């Protein structure tokens, strides 16, 4: 690692925050607006149940927007705090994916394979 980025980090007041370039921040704002408007337009322009690709598209756009916010607004990069913020973020991302994805996956299969209840509807937890 060259000394130049280290020096930049050393002299940046406000540490991980606020010293990101204004250009990066403007691009981030613009991207955030576009990435918010597009999914709303996708859903609101077609009333009723939408095809599967719409759901896939809005989730993909949300993921992209989260990355844009984290990079442009929270200024997460490999250098801030000696990489510890990035490490903490990646660790959290893994736990979040396991928690949400795992819960939905397991419970979906549990619901699908559940024995029908007498006198009641088979289906998700109520």
């Amino acid at each position, binding site marked *: 690692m060259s000394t130049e980025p280290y020096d930049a980090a050393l002299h940046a007041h*406000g*540490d991980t925050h606020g010293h990101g370039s204004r250009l990066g921040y403007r691009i981030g704002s613009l991207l955030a607006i576009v990435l918010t408007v597009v999914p709303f337009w996708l859903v609101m322009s077609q009333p009723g149940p939408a095809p599967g690709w719409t759901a896939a598209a809005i*989730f993909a756009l949300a993921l992209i927007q989260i990355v844009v916010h984290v990079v442009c607004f929270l200024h997460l990069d490999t250098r801030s705090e000696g990489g510890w913020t990035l490490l903490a973020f990646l660790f959290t991302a893994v736990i979040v994916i396991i928690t949400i994805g795992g819960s*939905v996956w397991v419970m979906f299969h549990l619901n699908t394979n559940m024995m029908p209840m007498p006198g009641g509807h088979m289906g998700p937890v109520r």
Partner: protein
Amino acid sequence: MTDHALNARDTGTTWHLAEQEDHDHGGNGATVLGFWIYLMSDALIFASLFAMFGVVSTSYAGGPVPREIFDLKLVALNTAFLLASSITFGEAMPHLEAGRVGPTRFWLAITGLLGLAFVGVELYEFSHLIAEGAGPQRSAFLSAFFTLVGTHGAHVTVGLIWIAASLVQIGQHGLIQPMKRRLICLSMFWHFLDIIWIGVFTFVYLYGVIR
């Protein structure tokens, strides 16, 4: 509460990391990293709430389904308020770094007003849902909905209190170094809440309406 923790870090032992890199910054590095860790733990709380919502999101118990009760125009308005408030907070940051009190307070106040509008619209939505019989006790789906969205709203409300306190404190002390550090943490908190809202409007509202 947070201030106590910050002050304790100031007067107490500093990390070797802070000694090496931030000796002239009042230990900002350690505080910002600590606050980042807090945000990550808060993200885990929201992850568990999202997981719960995901599991029961179709458990309507014969009650209303998302398509019948969610007003996407209202959600779009709310999303615009929160995203705009995130952008206006970003406008305050260069003024904060340069130590310009007036513009910092101006943009912070705008951020607070947009946040207030967000909470106002959300409370209107909640009262509207409860009035038409879609309260949290109606079905597992609605319980999870009110818990997840309500927890986010509570966070935004705490952020509003923090913004109001900061506006008063800037007036009293000016933009001294501890004040800058608190505002850096506040800006991280505020941007973080906007990131959580991306998950809420996508997973809860948009996906709820099209499924």
